[in-house]
């Protein structure tokens, strides 16, 4: 009971100071000129890019694995995953470590941008391009000022991939 009351109070306070955690707060990052967003609650940490160990015989978007304080974390190159041309890594290249159903994974992105509050009313459903462009891993398109943020469904993005591979491996 007390916990529930506390939660409500916290929420009210957060709303007053313009901070909401209703799942519409996003960490945004760049891939080239495009802006993407992931639910901030799914982000465990952001770390600078360090060399990874390549896993033999895996799809090319799986860059390799990294030692994250003793756990082995797979790193996914988002550009390759989206079939975008790869670029040289810079000082801004970072790994966003996310949690997908108990699994910890890293996403290599060009640079992190901002933490944005996007109201539910400013989120529109993902666009339809037909078979030409696969956007099934998008949750929606967010508008913030005049920026467009493609909101990622990381469960879909990462796990579908996993499942596929699992099925093949099995």
């Amino acid at each position, binding site marked *: 009971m007390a916990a529930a009351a506390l939660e409500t109070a916290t929420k009210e306070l957060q709303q007053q100071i313009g901070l909401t955690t209703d799942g519409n707060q996003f960490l945004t990052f760049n891939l080239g000129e495009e802006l993407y967003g992931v639910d901030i609650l799914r982000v465990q940490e952001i770390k600078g890019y360090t*060399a*990874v*160990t*390549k*896993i*033999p*015989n*895996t*799809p*090319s978007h799986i860059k*390799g*694995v*990294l*030692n994250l304080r*003793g*756990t*082995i*974390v*797979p790193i996914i190159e988002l550009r390759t995953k989206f079939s975008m041309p790869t670029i040289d890594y810079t000082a801004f290249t970072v790994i966003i470590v996310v949690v997908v159903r108990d*699994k*910890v*994974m890293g996403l290599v992105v060009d640079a992190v941008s901002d933490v944005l509050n996007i109201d539910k009313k400013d989120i529109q459903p993902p666009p339809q391009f037909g078979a030409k462009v696969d956007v099934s891993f998008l949750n929606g398109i967010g508008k913030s000022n005049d920026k467009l943020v493609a909101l990622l469904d990381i469960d879909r993005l990462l796990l579908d991939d*996993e499942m596929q*591979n*699992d099925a*093949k*491996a099995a």
Partner: protein
Amino acid sequence: MSDEFAQFQEAFFEEAAEHLAIVEEGLLALEQQPKDLELLAKIFRSAHSIKGASGMFGFNAVTQFTHKMETLLDLLRNGEKAVSPPIADLLLKSTDCLKTLIEAVKSGVAVDDEVVQRLAAELASASGAQAPVVPQKQAVAAPTQSEHQARRYLIKWTPPEWLFQRGLDPLQVIKELNGLGELSSVTLDMSRVPDLAEIDPEKCYLSWELQLLTGKDLKTIEAAFEFVREDSKLVIEEREALSVKRETSESGHDTRFTNDDQRAEDGAPKPLGAILVESGVVSPAVLEQALSQQKRVGEILVEQKVVTPQQVEQALQKQKQQESATQTKKTDTASIRVDTAKIDKLINLVGELVITQSMLSDLGARFEIKQLPVLLERVAQLERNTREIQERVMGIRMLPIGTAFSRFPRLVRDLSTKAGKKIQLVLSGEETELDKTVIESIGDPLTHLVRNSADHGLEPPEERLDNNKSEVGTIRLNAFHEGGNICITVEDDGRGLNRDKIVAKAVKQGLIGENDKLSDDQIWPLIFRPGFSTAEKVTDVSGRGVGMDVVKRNIEALGGTVSIKTVTGKGTTFTLKLPLTLAIIEGMTVRVGKETYIVPLLSILESIQPKDGTIKTVVGKGELINVRGTYLPMIRMYDVFVLEPEYTNPMKAILLILETEGERVAVMVDEILGQQQVVIKSMEQNFRKVEGIAGATILGDGTVGFILDVRGLLEIARHGTPIAA
């Protein structure tokens, strides 16, 4: 129940399980050496410990049953009775029963009372049959009670009225009685106390009914009443038999074990029969007869034609299943008993570690470059400490596999009696250590395999003699380390798998086509299919077609494999191969291009630098290397893992000769970097299994290195990459 109490209980259950294991093991050994008094004494001590501890916790059903076992054991120990096969058998059955009883208290499930009663009676009659000592008024009572054996007395005491006038305190008497043993119930009878107006405060109107559990004899008890004896009404009688009868009557009404003393204390009504007997209205014998006529619900229903016997049977089966289901769930609590010496050593090591650490930080605080040798020395010391601690911590979880093997002598003994076969069990490699969780999980699969060997594998004695084999069939259980794995083999010298039968069955079940040409290696694994059994008749031991699929599933769940080797007429060998997950392995770090891989040291036979002309090809591609006269297939690791090597010329590279499942291959790498212990990290935790890689580890520079799975590497080399890069 308070946590603390629960904790003590937990300890009791653990200890009881250990004692039971000792008893069982001892009894099995006793069958072979019936005259071994030392062994008997050991069994007796364990049984006694269970009795004592269960009594302390008030698990009366357990206490009483163990007491009966103990009585018989005592007779054997004193040489008043010889160990004979029926007695050993009875004791073994009783051990099982005791196990069930303890399990029942632990999980709170009901026990098949009938079995308990029957065994209790058998035990009693076994001990009573040769009772050389004073005839007891109840035949069931233990006949030879040595001084330390507890007996139950019912004491009715009405002190004289003058008790208080002489300055005597009845409480003192009761206290003294309590000192003799355990007063399990004290009932005060105040029925003679008159109305307040009529009370003479100097007179005693009270009387007591006490139950005393003591090892002392009647005289000693009477001595407690020394000063108040005169004019007292005192009846002391042995009540052991009575309580047995009472248990019988209880079981007639419900199937749960209840603690009858507690009932009395709680004020809960005693069973009718018990009260009738106690008050002397009926004799125990009459009661027993009456109870024997009492029927179980199922029987009554069948008689009334409400249900069919089959339905009852089914319901009973279901009940049993549910019971066993609860039991397995309850026994899953994980704890481990560790030798205190191991812990002490560990504490010492941690102490050393702390000292080394403080020495290092001291050095770091005011470090000058000329102290470098000191620094290096201390770092080396730190490494020694760490390694030793690591080893010992891992060692805590490691248990010899003998603990999993220990159940088999009994199993095989029972199976051989049941199947009328002569079976000899040979155990080896019991000292092979592996992780506790693995040991616990392989118990069931192993049991299935042993049962299978005994039931299907081995022939009956006549058939064996006809086939020029020894009458006694042999089942061999062996465990050993191989290439970073634990191998456990279950081997029998029986008839071997029948290829024709399996094929026929598989065709019938539509698993294979009638005209399929299959190799033996493709045929044998068919027996792991669910519902696949070629046994002509289903016995209660095996043949229902469940089992082998379970074996396979369980072993695979542990990341292991099962393989079969069989020779018709000669026997079958099942090999379980289990990985040493959780473990730390010794590995050789090798380099291929820029990548570092770890090869389990146990799978490396040797490493060589090939000379010109030792490498030949077959059909232009398949490479073979001549190693001292034997040609081994050569695998270029960079080919398999799609890496950029430093050398593509084998003459410049290094070849590791690896062994996996009896097969040898040469694997080409650029360089050997060194040997080190590596901690296996799971790849599956955040990713998935990768072919050719057994796991990952963190290398000295903090990056990730992969541990090679030799078998997997071979598979990829043979069948191509599973996932295109």
